[in-house]
């Protein structure tokens, strides 16, 4: 007993989840075999192979798009909004009923702590379906018209597999579109469980189609000529490729891309709360968050004190088994992502920043990275400019609010920002001057289905969530003048 305050293991049982040895594609209401080669999805905490998953070929994607088109023309776009709403409410309810199963499956496929999948991901997923269900029969009040676009091709990332699915599918269906969605190749399982939920809800065949695969499958969806709308969440690099691919077509596009958010702490901030916010900002979901507060900007006068408190707090973070209910930081999602985090961290050291990692024993198997902070970072350092997408925080200092704004905005990204101060007028002036789609003041990483989310500049375009989230799934693109 080296530490008498050590927590006893408190693992969630995974018996609730029945993972099949292999999965097909979900097309036209049925699970079908893909024509591509199957690939494996692993538990990143143990490297255990969970299942084999089909890779959708161009022909499979084409079949899915055809099914979606048929469902759109014959059923879904003809149905009244009130009836569509009922299906979405059913889905929301089943998600709540099967919430524990979804949370466990999400944690074993993704590596995120059960605490987060259970208390954050799944409840917000259900909330999204509830929120958009209510819009289905009220679209005439949205200001964007009531006519759906048709078939939406949607490609989502691995950091919030089920939540990103909800962000994409709920508004699309509410507006009367049908979808072909591709989950990330490392985290396909909850999307396939969602397909079962669609079956349980008796959703008409073809309204939701799930095709699994990697980049080639995604490209086939995005460039399919019969897809009317492309929605993508992921890296800025892929986002640019998609923007190029749809150029000259009639496809509508929304892109939710990378970020390098500044989390700005002023000297009058409540420091303990700020430290919690810093921790939440960068270590939530192992830092696999596009809006993560990965650049900490601290006012110089309190920099030492904030760093002391931050390191003390970081030392208490429990890193390990994602299914343990006491775990704060789970596994890195893939070997590839771990390599990227290690590489950028090594570059941080090589460029002269000082590295400190929380002392913790990492499990022997699986992909792990200890919560890490870099001090002495300058704006030119790559760790201050590039998205690391891992539990790595870069710390810079500033003296005046204007300097903080300059540094915060000195990035091609513009997804989110944080401000910590006791002074209301300072919060409001900072919020005005920060070029980012979300500004959290005295809080961080908060999400809600009623609230638009999306980026400025190279963090992409379009908004998801809220009334704004309907805009790019409807044909009328704007609030019409009085005569229409």
């Amino acid at each position, binding site marked *: 007993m080296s530490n008498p305050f050590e927590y006893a293991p408190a693992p969630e049982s995974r018996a609730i989840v029945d993972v099949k040895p292999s999965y097909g594609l979900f097309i036209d209401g049925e699970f079908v075999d893909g024509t591509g080669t199957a690939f494996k999805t692993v538990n990143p905490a143990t490297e255990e192979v969970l299942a084999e998953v089909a890779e959708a070929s161009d022909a499979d994607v084409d079949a899915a798009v055809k099914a979606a088109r048929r469902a759109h023309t014959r059923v879904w776009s003809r149905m009244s909004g009130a009836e569509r709403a009922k299906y979405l409410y059913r889905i929301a309810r089943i998600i709540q009923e099967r919430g524990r199963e979804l949370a466990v499956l999400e944690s074993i496929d993704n590596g995120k702590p059960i605490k987060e999948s259970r208390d954050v991901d799944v409840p917000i997923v259900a909330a999204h379906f509830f929120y958009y269900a209510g819009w289905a029969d009220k679209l005439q009040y949205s200001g964007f018209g009531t006519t759906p676009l048709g078939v939406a091709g949607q490609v989502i990332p691995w950091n919030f597999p089920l939540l990103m699915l909800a962000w994409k599918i709920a508004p699309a269906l509410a507006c009367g579109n049908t979808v072909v969605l591709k989950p990330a190749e490392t985290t396909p399982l909850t999307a396939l469980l969602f397909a079962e939920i669609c079956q349980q809800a008796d959703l008409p065949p073809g309204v939701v189609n799930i095709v699994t695969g990697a980049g080639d499958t995604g490209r086939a969806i995005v460039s399919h000529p019969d897809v009317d709308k492309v929605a993508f969440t992921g890296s800025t690099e892929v986002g640019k490729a998609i923007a190029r691919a749809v150029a*000259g077509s009639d496809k509508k596009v929304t892109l939710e891309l990378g970020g390098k958010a500044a989390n700005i702490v002023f000297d009058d901030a409540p420091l303990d709360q700020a430290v919690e916010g810093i921790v939440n900002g960068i270590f939530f979901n192992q830092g696999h968050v596009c809006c993560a507060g990965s650049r900490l900007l601290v006012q110089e006068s309190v920099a030492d004190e904030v760093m002391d408190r931050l390191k003390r707090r970081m030392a208490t973070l429990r890193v390990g088994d994602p299914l343990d209910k006491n775990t704060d930081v789970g596994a890195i999602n893939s070997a590839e992502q771990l390599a990227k985090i290690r590489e950028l961290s090594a570059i941080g050291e090589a460029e002269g920043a000082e590295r400190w990692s929380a002392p913790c024993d990492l499990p022997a198997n699986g992909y792990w990275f200890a919560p890490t902070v870099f001090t002495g970072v300058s704006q030119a350092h790559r760790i201050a400019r590039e998205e690391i997408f891992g539990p790595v925080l870069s710390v810079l200092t500033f003296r005046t609010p204007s300097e903080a704004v300059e540094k915060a905005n000195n990035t091609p990204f513009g997804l989110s920002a944080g401000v910590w101060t006791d002074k209301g007028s300072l919060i409001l002036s900072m919020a005005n001057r920060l070029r980012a*789609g979300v500004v959290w003041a005295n*809080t961080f990483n908060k999400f809600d289905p*009623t609230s638009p989310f999306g980026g400025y500049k190279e963090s992409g375009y379009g908004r998801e969530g809220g009334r704004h989230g309907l805009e790019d799934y409807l044909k009328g*693109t*704007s609030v*019409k003048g009085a*005569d229409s």
Partner: protein
Amino acid sequence: MSRIDVRKTYKLYIGGQFPRSESGRSYVVNDAKGRLLANAALASRKDARDAVVAARSAFGGWSGRTAYNRAQVVYRVAEVLEGRREQFEAELRAAEGVSSSRARAYVDAAIDRLVWYAGWADKITQVVGNANPVAGPYFNLSTPEPSGVIAVVAPRGPLLGLVSVVAPLIVTGNTVVVIASEQHPLTAITLGEVMATSDLPGGVVNVLTGSQAEIAPWLASHMDVNGIDLTGVTDPALATGLEVAAADNLKRVRRPAPDTDWLAEPDLDRMTRFLETKTVWHPIGV
């Protein structure tokens, strides 16, 4: 003996100034019957870059003004245009060969459009922004903000077309670099004179005359441009190329709209396409 008229030298409008093209080039602009109207400046890549610098410099000040003040300035443009309506009617008749009544209708519509958009400056936030009913102890607000510097390929219709694409961008706080209609550029520069004398800060609107195909690619690939409005691009291959170039820094793109009826009342889309939505969160509590 009859009086020799004083012909006008048309230049560019950049940063509130009227420079010639740095390239020293110009091109012939004929009237509807093929007679020389004037030589217009043939803008170069350098002119386009200078215009972006001017638009970027103007952005902070312009977007930082109160919406009320932006409304006043845009309304002032309408006032000055009204005062010079005969000049525009004459220029439209000469350039496009339209009848007097048609020319009058275009000028009327251009003035009315400026007035319509001026009124939006302090209302768009209320119409497209909102407080969100968050499920938790938080207060959050979503408000629109301008995207930044927008490049515009203006459609034909050197007065009404131009006003219809520029006004929605500037009332919302963006600054713009416009490539005027290639065939009918002259009225655009005269409109620049109206803007220059109507309290609009230099650099908020910059007008380039010349070849769409030559200048637009530089603007589409410019890393300090945040959006591009392709309304006036008539060549589909060029439009696709510009959209591809715009992807380099994820510019917001408005695709060409060849059959737009400029006399019809517009909707909000021309404003919202180049607005971002910012959501600000704060906890509720002690």
